């Protein structure tokens, strides 16, 4: 084992870890940085639950040694939005009651946000292809597809131009379905 100093930008903040460079990024995030939103599902890049963004691209963090993020930008689910300022994808997920057990959803959202960043209005076929690496054992694939289309609408409006009820997880907004 070789301990190295890995310096990178993590969710927008300059971060440095003294760590065995071969540690998978997934476990560095969960155990060394201490954020648990990125999930362990299989460890072999087959399920997508560990998906994060590496300089904007969706990657399986269980397959990436932490040494590979030297000097790069890493974004996790905690970095793309929160309850006060949700990403349009998170907002769309909430509106459609997408999560069931929710364990795969960090990965689903990271893959979806990366897809929309490069393809702002994907077809169902494009969505299926881009997201085929993310398993949802609870079977919410249909809802995810619908929510991606809804996220496209919300993204087109622009985060700062959304009506108040759609911009935040508004306490008055209780029912499933989008805010028109």
């Amino acid at each position, binding site marked *: 084992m070789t301990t190295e100093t890995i310096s990178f930008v993590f969710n927008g903040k300059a971060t440095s870890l003294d760590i065995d460079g071969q540690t998978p990024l997934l476990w560095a995030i969960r155990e060394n940085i201490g954020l648990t939103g990125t999930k362990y599902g299989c460890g072999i890049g087959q399920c997508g639950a560990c998906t994060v963004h590496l300089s904007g691209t969706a990657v399986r963090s269980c397959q990436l040694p932490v040494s590979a993020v030297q000097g790069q930008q890493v974004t996790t689910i905690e970095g793309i939005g929160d309850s006060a300022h949700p990403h349009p994808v998170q907002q769309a997920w909430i509106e459609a009651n997408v999560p069931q057990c929710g364990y795969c959803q960090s990965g689903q959202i990271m893959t979806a946000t990366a897809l929309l960043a490069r393809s702002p209005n994907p077809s169902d076929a494009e969505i299926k292809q881009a997201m085929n690496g993310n398993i949802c054992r609870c079977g*919410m694939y249909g809802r995810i597809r619908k929510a991606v289309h809804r996220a496209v609408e919300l993204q087109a409006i622009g985060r700062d131009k959304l009506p108040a009820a759609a911009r935040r997880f508004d306490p008055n907004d209780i029912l499933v379905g989008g805010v028109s």
Partner: protein
Amino acid sequence: MSPMHVSRRGFLVGGATVVGGLALGVYFTQSKSPLPGASSGALQPNAWLQITPDNQVVFQLDKAEMGQGVFTSMPTIVAEELGIDPREIRVEQAPVHEQFQDPIQITGGSTSTNTRWDILRRTGAVAREMLIAAAAAKWGIPADECHAQQGRVHHKSSSRSLTFGELATSAATMPMPEEPRLKQPSEYSYIGQPLRRFDGVDKVTGAAIYGLDVSLPGMLNASLVRNPYIGGAIAQMDLSRAKSAPGVVDAFAISSGIAVVADTYWHAREAAQLVEVEWDKGAIAPGLDSASIRAAWVRMIRQEDGRVAHAAGNIQEAFEFATDVHEAVYETPYLAHATMEPQNATALFNGEECEVWAPSQSAQLVQTMISQALDLSPGRIRVHTTMLGGGFGRRAFPDFAVDAAEVARMLPKHPVKVIWSREDDTRHDRYRPASYNVLRAALDETGMVQGWAHKMVGPSILSQLLPYAASLAPGWIPDWLAGGLAGTAAWMLEDRDPTTHEGAAENPYGIAHFEARHIYHDPGIPIGFWRSVGHSHNAFITESFIDELAHKAEEDPYKFRRRLLGERRHAQVLNLAAEKAGWGKPRSGLHQGIAVHESFGSVVAEVAEIRMVGGKPEVERVVCAVNCGRTVNPDLVKAQMESGIIFGLSAAMKSGVQIREGAVVESNFHDYQLLRMAEAPDIEVYILDSSAPPTGVGEPGTPPIAPAVGNAIFAATGKRLRKLPFVLS
């Protein structure tokens, strides 16, 4: 089967009726143990609800949230009657408490809503009336001039109101009403509405804490090395290399294998690869493989009679006088649960007491199993239930919690988290049992079905699991079992286990001469409850075989079923699915298959539409109709149907566990494959309007999908597939 009520004799756990249950009044009388989270000055009518003087409405959720939505639906029921926005309620995962034990505290069998429907409405209503009584006394006015809404008691004519918190202490002194007024459905603001789920925000922001995310100061992490041979043991081990690996604190044997404990899971897992071990194959593994199991069952089904689960008429005569006999062999495999979150648990042992954090479906069984393993009284075991990353029945058997407790016992005063790898999870599951079946139908000269005989061979879930529950209260053991020894009980259950024949023994088509028989044989592979249990294999078999008989009679499979169902409520559900799917008129290139099945109190019908592409079936659309009584949250019901369909479809199209040389072959998602986005059909769900009490929703979506797809494949190709997963050569 009729909807369940708490006051009736039993409730279903995975399909087995267990004697027990309490009259509702018991929930409001003095409880033997202190109520959860009890605080002074609070109104706390029972273990579920507490209203504190500082205006916190706290709900103890005694059901595990595994995606099915109890975190949302249960508080909604209480809130409706209490008179408060359900999102104002603070939901806490309940500890083990006797009031939650009906007769054991467990989440499963699609029973949460139907067993909590009455008690939670009453709980909210009792609290509401006591709060109103307190306000009325304070204002010196009659109680019927007050109403509760939005967390306050209001007196309209004088425009006065008080918060529940302001009234809590005096409300607690008011007499508890024995028959509180329950709202009429026409008064519902929340029940019946498609509310957004209350755990949704946490689940889309990475904030939800699953068992695998538990973090405690000074926590250690453990990775396991396990014997791949089923029922095997450790012959020899050398842990010296593992113990000197970076970050490792200790390594030792526990009941289920070897634990390597380190500062991080990654260090533990890397060190585990340095464990040197020679495995003893044990008694079960040698010669055990899928082919030998099948060969034994092929032989047994012809040579043995087994036990009759249900019979009607005279099956011998029916076959004697039949003009024609149609016979078919059906086979279903062992299946893994594959919850997205692998099994795990965290435990802290201080020498006398054990505290556990586990994503389990039964906090009480966590207590029971740890009690047996550590020889510790259940009262010294405190259980916290986290969010579950999927359950599907797997987490009703919390062996993972025992692992954590055993490791914690070796390292007292250190919290230890045990994480199963995906490989551990796939190879050390408690699988959905396999089965081998012979179906025979006696047909008369007009092609009508006069006799139906279903003979099956396979193991018994209850007979395998019962010994693990030995320290549960005796009331759990059904009346007809003499004596108390769990082992004796397990032996006696072998060929009486209702989970083996549920879905096969009910004769919904009212065939005059009917018989379902089970031959017990357990090859030794660990089994457990898997979403919809016996229905998961029996519905495939019965709804495929009835389809065979329809085609043999040259009648449309929907019309054939409808004719036989007569006035049964199955017919209404079947009709709705057929209508919404445009049965008989599929869009160009599509072929349709239909199935209807009752399970856990609900009836579900599904039409699958497939397109043959390159000789392989692609499922494009599934139309689902469900009768589940009244819905608390119709969107969560739809989501559960969608979920059950994909779960069943994944098994039908892709999954099966193979055994070779006494070990499970599959290990991860590359070889135990699951349905993915690109293969997932569009799903439409239609819920029948019903004012009957709610019936099961978590599991009933699963049984009909495999036969619906198999029937569509027959319509498309003329090939009848009688084995799962579907393989078209």
